[in-house]
């Protein structure tokens, strides 16, 4: 039980490359914190710094009120689940889980109780004597989890633990991890590049990009009010439609100070196909270029003839002039049809021209 506080944490490699450029995060006791971002954003590095596997070149990492910058990983009272599980291949499942306890000089009877309890919780009891190579991916994953929970650490660290599993198992394990964490009520930090995983697991979501924190907060709050265009297009799938406010078409509809903002964002599900223009809202004529039907909903890809102006470059961004509209059901306009979509005022997101600041209109 502990809170984790990162104070202006920095990581500069000897070559001068700055992987982490001053990160401040506060994870309260028992919270589930997810670090999310595209590959290379520094999220794994940051987690490994908390674990003590990477040195901290600036700032402080505080676990449970103790600055641990110089503390060995074993003495930080953390447990980590690795992406490739990092099970000891020559040890049985039992020994994999018991190893860390025995190294700490725990009595064999206590080791046995703890391992068997973890095996029961994770449904590993029938395979305690097997070697990791005799297990399926999901079972290995559970052994890795077991190795973490037997230690009863202050903090769990997860480094993309589900990315080696197939899609179905990933969802099942995601739920299991969440339930387990709730029950044990142990502070957790979880790294992923999958925004869906991030949204569903997190109490606190930290969106990272280029070694910096873009936004911290409740996942839904971030979804509702992304602070930057990066967050806007990274969180949510399909990504938010971003367009320049400088074109006459949009400028005239927004009017006033809003039209000076620079970038307008509208989520695909906030559009409706309609001929009306809601008061203060935005309506766009589109040419339907592609339709994706996934059952419960349908995505309409349309192009705007007028807008050729490119807005801030962010991952997951749409090609300029393309707009995605999400409509419920399978009813959809024909390809090549000209339609008109509109979004109401409260659903509009406005950002400064460089995409770094959200503007509340």
């Amino acid at each position: 039980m502990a809170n984790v506080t990162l104070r202006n944490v920095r990581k500069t490699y000897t070559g001068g490359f700055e992987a982490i450029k001053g990160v401040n995060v506060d994870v309260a006791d028992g919270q589930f914190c997810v670090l999310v971002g595209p590959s290379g954003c520094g999220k794994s590095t940051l987690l490994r710094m908390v674990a003590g596997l990477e040195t901290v070149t600036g700032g402080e990492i505080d676990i449970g009120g103790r600055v641990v910058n110089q503390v060995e990983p074993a003495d930080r009272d953390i447990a980590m689940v690795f992406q490739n599980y990092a099970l000891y291949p020559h040890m049985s499942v039992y020994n994999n889980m018991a190893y860390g306890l025995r190294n700490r000089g725990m009595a064999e009877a206590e080791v046995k109780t703890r391992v068997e309890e973890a095996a029961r919780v994770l449904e590993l009891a029938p395979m305690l004597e097997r070697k990791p190579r005799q297990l399926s991916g999901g079972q290995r994953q559970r052994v890795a989890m077991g190795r973490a929970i037997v230690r009863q650490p202050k903090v769990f660290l997860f480094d993309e633990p589900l990315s080696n599993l197939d899609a179905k198992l990933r969802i099942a394990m995601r739920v299991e991890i969440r339930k387990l964490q709730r029950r044990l009520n142990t502070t957790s930090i979880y790294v992923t590049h999958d925004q869906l995983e991030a949204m569903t697991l997190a109490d606190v979501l930290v969106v990272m990009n280029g070694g910096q924190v873009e936004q911290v907060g409740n996942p839904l709050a971030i979804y509702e009010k992304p602070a930057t265009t990066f967050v806007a297009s990274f969180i949510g799938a399909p990504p938010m439609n971003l367009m320049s406010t400088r074109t006459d078409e949009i400028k005239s509809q927004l009017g006033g100070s809003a039209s000076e903002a620079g970038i307008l964002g509208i989520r695909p599900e906030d559009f409706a196909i309609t001929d009306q223009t809601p008061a203060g809202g935005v309506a766009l004529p589109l040419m339907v270029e592609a339709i994706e039907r996934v059952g419960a909903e349908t995505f309409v890809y349309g192009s705007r003839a007028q807008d050729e102006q490119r807005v801030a470059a962010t991952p997951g961004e749409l090609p300029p002039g393309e707009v995605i509209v999400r409509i419920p059901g399978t009813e959809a306009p024909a390809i090549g049809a000209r339609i008109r979509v509109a979004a109401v005022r409260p659903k509009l997101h406005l950002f400064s021209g460089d995409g770094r600041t959200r503007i509340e209109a």
Partner: protein
Amino acid sequence: MVEDEGIRRYVAHFILWVGIAIVAFPVYIAIVASTQDNALIANGQMSLLPGGHFFEVYYQTIFVGTSGSTREPVGNMMLNSLVMALAIAIGKIAISIISAYAIVYFRFPFRMAIFWIIFITLMLPVEVRIYPTYKIVADLHMLDSYAGLALPLIASATATLLFRQFFMTVPDELLEASRIDGAGPLRFFWDTLLPLSRTNMAALFVILFILGWNQYLWPLLITTRDDMQTIQVGIRKMITTTDALTEWPIVMATAVLAMLPPVFVVVAMQKLFVRGLVETEK
């Protein structure tokens, strides 16, 4: 088509049998000759069937030796060879696995320089550095001793490189997991790296044991006392005799005996050996 396949298979098998015969015949001759009477062999009347002197020849070979001036029981020679070969194989594995561990897992000044120095010694086998090596061993008063036989042959670049390559394929996460599990460098080495290297060590042991067992030049140079002779040197000495008949049955018995330990090692460790060469347990 079917007959064709059959014929082809017979041809292939025939060729293989010829090959086996060519390889095995000298071995057979050695075994047969070691059971015959010496006079018969000296007359050139050796039979291709085993003779009746098996027990007396082997008894004499192992416990007495030839009747010449350098009589030395082969049992003793085998012991010498065994000690040397084991010391070389075990010593090489021990030293090279430790140095490979240092080079792969630790950052220290001149790490790469040291790695390259080890690498360069690949080009300097015993034969090339024989004079300086002899001088050092002589100055250390290690002539005619097991230490002198084994020590100069222990440092091994090949084995170090092999372990280095293997260690580099071990995922870093294992080390990190060990660190989080509270295992220090020695524990990680002992608990994780050594068990993972087991098959590699077995494969190396087979190769190095045979290499050590078959050493000829070095033992010939540094052993002068008969009771420190190794079996390979001993065979050679038995053949060249002055003023006496070469005792071929004993020579052949010695040759057969010299074959046994390598054969035993290969057979005993075959499974591990093959696994160590073809698969890495991960």
